[in-house]
């Protein structure tokens, strides 16, 4: 009798245990009753660390706000960061660590395009949902992979927007000042495509190095070509020198800047000459200047949480992307699975607090952000002047 009772109790315990195991096996990876684990893949150390950390600080601020208001269907968002050092080889390892060691539900991040491209095969193979925040390589989301989305403008979109804007502004003689390094080529080549599509030829096509000491020769050549508009594809250091030297020789064309000078207020401060940027309009992924009252709430939250951070456009990349992911997780429902998330994200449009237009994904388009905003100085303050929906 005693042996029978022991047998029954052992069997019952085994049955309960096996049910638990089955239950656990059915639960989605990275999801428990209390939390959803999300991985950040990006550059956290080295010269480009701010392109990763600052963006992720923005994401984490959004997550924290969601957590404070009860989480997503009662689950807290936990964000785990892994460093890809902006290098392809490191990115593969970081992706594997997030997927297999941390066992994250999804990846939310990606800064340097080369690193993100290297990590993509592992993420594709494991079918982990991935929302890209800052990488601009178009091949990350085109052709569409069902579980990969981006909330950043692709590199070509900025260039197309620049040409489109010049045409919309009625500019007839358009010149180019562009870097021809890897970064520059990724924007210069689409720029030339866009010129061709609009049936116009640049009147001058000048090259600038990323770290010039002087750009007088370039300014003189563009002035000699009688350009009425100049498209700038350059890092801030190069753009500062070019803008100063154009101003120095008394040449004041309409300047169409890229996102590197999208913070026109900061760029004007860097140029340091009153009036030199009056004719500059610059394209940006974000929809508001960092000191715009419309984003004051986020500025306050970010700067309070990260005492070393000064609120800037990179935080806004993270905030917009974070708001998209939080909404997609909500829509995916209480019984959260990766499939449910992918389905929700693929049919979602979110008006974020910081972009100039909605982030909209459809089953056939995972390049979810396509609104370029234009900024310029109005009475000494950076203001959004227009938006451009970019199409190819």
């Amino acid at each position: 009798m005693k042996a029978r009772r022991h047998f029954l109790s052992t069997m019952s315990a085994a049955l309960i245990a096996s049910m638990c195991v089955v239950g656990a096996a059915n639960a989605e990876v990275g999801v428990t009753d209390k939390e959803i684990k999300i991985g950040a893949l990006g550059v956290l150390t080295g010269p480009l660390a701010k392109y990763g950390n600052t963006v992720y600080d923005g994401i984490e601020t959004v997550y924290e706000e969601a957590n404070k208001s009860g989480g997503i269907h009662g689950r807290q968002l936990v964000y785990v960061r892994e460093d890809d050092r902006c290098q392809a080889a490191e990115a593969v390892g970081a992706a594997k660590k997030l997927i297999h060691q941390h066992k994250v539900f999804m990846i939310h991040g990606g800064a340097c395009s080369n690193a993100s491209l290297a990590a993509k095969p592992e993420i594709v193979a494991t079918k982990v949902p991935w929302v890209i925040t800052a990488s601009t390589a178009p091949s990350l989301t085109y052709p569409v992979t069902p579980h990969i989305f981006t909330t950043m403008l692709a590199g070509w979109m900025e260039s197309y927007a620049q040409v489109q804007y010049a045409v919309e502004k009625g500019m007839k003689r358009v010149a180019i000042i562009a870097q021809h390094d890897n970064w520059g080529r990724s924007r210069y080549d689409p720029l030339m495509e866009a010129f061709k599509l609009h049936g116009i030829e640049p009147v001058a096509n000048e090259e600038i190095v990323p770290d010039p000491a002087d750009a007088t020769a370039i300014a003189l050549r563009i002035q000699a070509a009688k350009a009425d508009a100049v498209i700038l594809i350059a890092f801030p250091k190069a753009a500062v020198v070019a803008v100063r030297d154009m101003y120095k020789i008394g040449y004041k064309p309409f300047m169409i800047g890229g996102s590197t000078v999208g913070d026109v207020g900061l760029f004007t401060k860097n140029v340091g000459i009153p009036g030199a940027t009056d004719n500059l309009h610059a394209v940006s992924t974000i929809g508001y200047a960092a000191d715009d009252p419309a984003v004051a709430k986020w500025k306050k939250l970010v700067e309070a949480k990260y005492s070393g951070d000064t609120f800037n456009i990179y935080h806004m990349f993270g905030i917009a992307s974070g708001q998209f992911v939080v909404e997609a997780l909500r829509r995916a429902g209480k019984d959260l699975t990766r499939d449910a998330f992918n389905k929700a994200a693929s049919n979602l449009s979110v008006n974020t607090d910081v972009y100039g237009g909605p982030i909209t994904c459809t089953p056939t388009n995972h390049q979810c952000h396509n609104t370029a905003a234009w900024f310029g100085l109005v009475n000494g303050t950076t203001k959004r002047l227009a938006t451009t929906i970019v199409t190819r």
Partner: protein
Amino acid sequence: MLAYLLMSGIATGALYAMMAIGLVLVYRSTGHINFSHGELFMFGGFIAYTFFVILGVPYFLSLILAVIGGFVLGILSDRAVYRPLIKAPPLTMVLATVGFSFFLKGIARYFWGSMEGGDYVAFPAAMDPSPIPIGSIMVFPQQLLILAGAIVFVVGFTIFFRMTRAGKMMQATSENPTAAYLSGIRVERVYTLTWGAGSAIAAAAAVLMAPMTLLSPDVGFQLLLKAFAATVLGGLGSMPGAIVGGLLVGILESLGGGYVHSGVQDVSAFIVIIIVLILRPAGIFGVRNIRDT
């Protein structure tokens, strides 16, 4: 157009010349190329930035403090990095200077790297930055300051070498270290002084240039390349060669960029250097071989 290009070329060339002088100074004394010279330049700029922008010290005082800071940094680098390797093979010294350059870059990135939300900081001009007319062209006052500063430093260093005891000891050591040692000169101390002086002049160049560009931890490498080109063009080891070479590199870049294409601006000087070296391998002011200690 020519006047503009010449003016820009001379102003930029003056900076290259200052950088080249620092390189030549160390090379003549020690027989080594200091591959961390660009980062010493960068560090001097950030020292000035700290005084001028963060602490509000006047520009010219900041310049002097940066020069002093650069000098001290040069001495520290000698004591910490180079002196322990004084008898090591040249390749070891190359690696040491390259390693030290990365070290300095890392330090700069840590302290100043993201102060303004980017990996660069703006260094305001010493005076009203608006361009002013000089004859038929407009120039930035800072360009004139660069020229004036370069002249002051070149003249100052010339006087130092010719008129002061320390300068003469440095000259003697560069001519023949063994003879200098036998005649009672403390050669190692001269080396220390040389590293300090080279670093100080790099810091001065950085403070003059910073308001024309932006300052970043990576700013030094490009300048090092140009300075190296200037020393090769002028004649490796020649002080007048460094000055002439620097000015020529600046002018050639400017003319090449203006009259040929902007794409050749950065390489035009190197093309001419190749031609010069084919015709005159020792450079314009070809110098004697440096003897090993």
